[in-house]
């Protein structure tokens, strides 16, 4: 018997409907088995048990059937495909569950009041998060205005100019900065302003922006560095050969070519810091009042709003919880809009091919 058949014709294949049928059958059997097992006992049917049992049964059926009908290579293929798909499902389930929980709990208070009122003098139901939304937007904007130029210029130095010890040192410190726990960044900004302005004025919105910048700069540097590295060297040489100085080559050839990637990286960095809670709790504080001025007085932000609403629930517990969920949902929507924006930018700015 030949181990490898000499023809090029495929051996027999399982019918296309086999996979869905096996899937449905396995999980039905598993469900029935666990339901029967749990009748009489106090616990209900275990969802995890049904899923695991069903998956194991499906794996066994498919691999055995495929081994018998299709041969060893196809059976291995089906086994690995099933495992990879299961891993994907396992990764997505918490995400969907989280999104669903936030939306279903948060949508109750997502009304006009929520976007038009602060929490000043509100103890029961009502009130809103306008002060927190304004705070988050202002703080993130200031943090971006600081981090984006610093980050992009650092990356340009590292990719285009950096040689030797200084460049290695910069790379090392960027790596270290990436690993700074966010609470430490908050403590840094808080102590900095404590030293500069004294205890009365130390906590303000700008201190929060500084804390966010510390977290954001390394992310921007890393993203920009990667994007600049993939700009082909041939383009730089083409520009040099036309008698264009190095700095103009960077400004007019390298940066435009990498712009889409850099913009995406920057927006991802913003999305990363916009949800920071701990550093803002320390550096920007929390308040129930409107404050448009980031340079004086405490400033509320959405993550801190979510945290304080949940931590200090007051008498009318439910309305505090509702506001907390609505705050979380608003934050998620802002991040989603930013991501959408990043996709649009990379679509419109990327170099156009044929």
């Amino acid at each position: 018997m030949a181990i490898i058949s000499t023809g090029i014709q495929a051996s027999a294949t399982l019918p296309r409907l086999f996979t869905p049928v096996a899937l449905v059958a396995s999980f039905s059997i598993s469900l029935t088995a666990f339901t029967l097992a749990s009748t009489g006992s106090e616990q209900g049917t275990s969802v995890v048990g049904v899923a695991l049992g069903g998956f194991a049964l499906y794996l066994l059926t498919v691999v055995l059937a495929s081994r018998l009908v299709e041969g060893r290579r196809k059976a291995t293929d089906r086994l690995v495909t099933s495992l990879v798909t299961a891993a994907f499902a396992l990764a997505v389930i918490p995400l969907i569950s989280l999104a669903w929980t936030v939306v279903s709990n948060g949508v109750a208070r997502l009304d006009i009041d929520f976007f038009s009122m602060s929490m000043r003098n509100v103890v029961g139901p009502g009130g809103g998060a306008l002060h927190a939304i304004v705070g988050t937007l202002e703080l993130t904007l200031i943090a971006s205005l600081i981090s984006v130029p610093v980050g992009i210029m650092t990356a340009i130095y590292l990719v285009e100019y950096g040689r030797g010890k200084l460049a290695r040192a910069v790379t090392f410190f960027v790596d270290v900065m990436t690993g700074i726990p966010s609470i430490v960044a908050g403590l840094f900004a808080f102590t900095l302003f404590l030293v500069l302005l004294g205890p009365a004025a130390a906590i303000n919105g700008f201190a929060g922006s500084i804390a966010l910048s510390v977290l954001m700069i390394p992310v921007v540097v890393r993203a920009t560095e990667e994007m600049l590295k993939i700009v082909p060297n041939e383009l730089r040489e083409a520009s040099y050969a036309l008698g264009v100085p190095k700095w103009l080559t960077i400004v007019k050839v390298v940066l435009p070519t990498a712009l889409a990637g850099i913009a995406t990286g920057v927006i991802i960095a913003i999305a990363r810091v916009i949800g920071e809670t701990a550093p803002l709790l320390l550096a920007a504080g929390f308040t129930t009042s409107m404050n448009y001025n980031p340079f004086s007085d405490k400033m509320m932000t959405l993550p801190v709003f979510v945290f304080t609403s949940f931590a200090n629930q007051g008498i009318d517990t439910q309305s505090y919880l509702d506001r907390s969920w609505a705050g979380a949902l608003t934050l998620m929507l802002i991040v989603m809009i930013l991501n959408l924006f990043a996709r649009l930018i990379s679509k419109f700015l990327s170099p156009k091919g044929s």
Partner: protein
Amino acid sequence: MAKRIELKSIDVYYGKFKAVEDINMVIEPRAITAFIGPSGCGKSTLIRTLNRMHEVIPGAYVDGQLLMDGENIYSDEVDPVKVRRQVGMVFQRPNPFPTMSIRDNVISGYKLNNSKMSKSDADGLVERALKGANLWNEVKDRLERPGSSLSGGQQQRLCIARAIAVEPDVILMDEPTSALDPISTAAIEDLAVELKEKFTVVIVTHNMQQASRISDMTAFFNIAGTGMPGKLIEYDKTEKIFSNPSQQQTEDYVSGRFG
């Protein structure tokens, strides 16, 4: 405006490694000079010293004198950026700027240097440069399309148009056809022959038929072994190099007995 280039005891280094040793030659204006030789013999390195592109690589430098119409471009007062404005270069792989249209690619030498130009001047220049590169008829209706939308051969001619648009004195071509099909190659070769009416043309090629077809002068380079510097073995009229070379190495190479 073609210029005569004179190389006087040129040594080219990558850090400590000497890649090319003691080159003495005169490159004539209004002629095509071809550099041939096996891989790694320093042809590309040498052509990159003619517009001071070699020193872009960290640690790389050049020793000796390189006179362009009597002026040493390696003297301390010379700005390498200004040299590159007089010496255009076409690379092995076509490299139009991906963020620019065909039109902007042609005038990129001006745009990237922030030179102001009226629209009618720019239009005239684009048409002249594209006609000079034999590309005008193929792209005149789609000048606003991205440069990367063209075929490989068209892209290479676009790069030539870009190089001649800044009106240099010398045009360097580093294996300009090695990534192209025979028809595009023929187009580039015809173009090179036209360009020598106005410019000094230097071309590096692995294709000996190409060197014998288009060049007036041919320089043969060789290395004694890996890690050794490349040397100029023989430099003469192209017919002489290909029919009756004075060096045994040259004869072996052009007749295909080695390399």
